[in-house]
């Protein structure tokens, strides 16, 4: 299981990635994340993050009728969200590269 401290800062980008494919709702996003290996990510975990994404204008929402009682909120990525997603991924690659460098070739003592 990925520690929650490690997830912080990356989960928003990952949610954006899931939303960028098509309009989707909370439970579906949590299921998609679980499918990709983000264990124990429930709808409740991502709900505050979705609210933040909406507040920052990275996604828009639309309520639609649901077969299960109340209306369901669907999320759609905005152009700002798309550019934020691009910059998230390039930042992630940079971080990944730095961590890999450290662990693969820089694991020895400093000279």
């Amino acid at each position: 299981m990925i520690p929650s401290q490690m997830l912080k800062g990356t989960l928003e980008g990952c949610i954006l990635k899931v939303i960028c494919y098509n309009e989707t709702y909370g439970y579906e996003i949590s299921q998609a994340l679980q499918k990709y290996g983000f264990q124990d990510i429930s709808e409740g975990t991502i709900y505050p993050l979705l609210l933040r994404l909406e507040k920052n204008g990275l996604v828009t929402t639309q309520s639609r009728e649901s077969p299960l009682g109340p209306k369901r909120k669907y999320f759609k990525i905005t152009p700002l969200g798309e550019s934020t997603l691009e910059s998230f991924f390039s930042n992630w690659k940079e971080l990944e590269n730095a961590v890999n460098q450290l662990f693969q070739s820089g694991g020895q003592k400093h000279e």
Partner: protein
Amino acid sequence: MNKQTRELNRMNNDLDKLLYLENNPAMTDIICYLRGANISEYNQEIIRQDLLEMVLSAQERNENIETVIGTDYKTFCDEIIATFPPKSLKEKMIGFFDAISLGLSVFCAINIILSNETFVLIHNLIVGEPLNFEIDVTAGLIVSLLIAFIAAFGIVNFIMKKSFEIGSLFHNNTSAILIVLGSISIFLVIGWFGRNTIFTVNIFIALFFSFALYLTHRLLSRI
């Protein structure tokens, strides 16, 4: 509560009835905590609607509220609250004066109905004796009013802020009954020792005052 918020509140109340019994206490604690948060009533209802959608959908999948939200409700709520703008000074002032107007209106109405003078007035009206329309306003009444207001604000705020810690206390009927009986006893003691009349007021003026305060509350709650 403006029209839009009232409508959302009504819809959420209807959805609330669909919750299974096992999910009710946790949902009540969460909503109680959100009510005490420094965010507008409209945003509180928006969050409530989203949470109800989550929990009702979970029920359909034979899951419970813990599966969806986890067990740390306070952190969950704090994260949600942080995403909404805080109440403006205007909203806070309207909320404060709305609560004062309603509270004072109800307090006046109860005291008019339950006062000795009202009973004497009704009795005299029936038997045809001279009518006295004056009601005594005693020191005990004024002290009770002040204590009731301060206690009400204090208790409500405390319950809202600590809903997750003390929620179980209020899910237990015996504790709630003891708290209510204890509060009534305090007011009876104050009422008994504070019987000195400070001033008298005409019953119709008192009724008009109570009604005007109620109208003020209705007006403020619609802004």
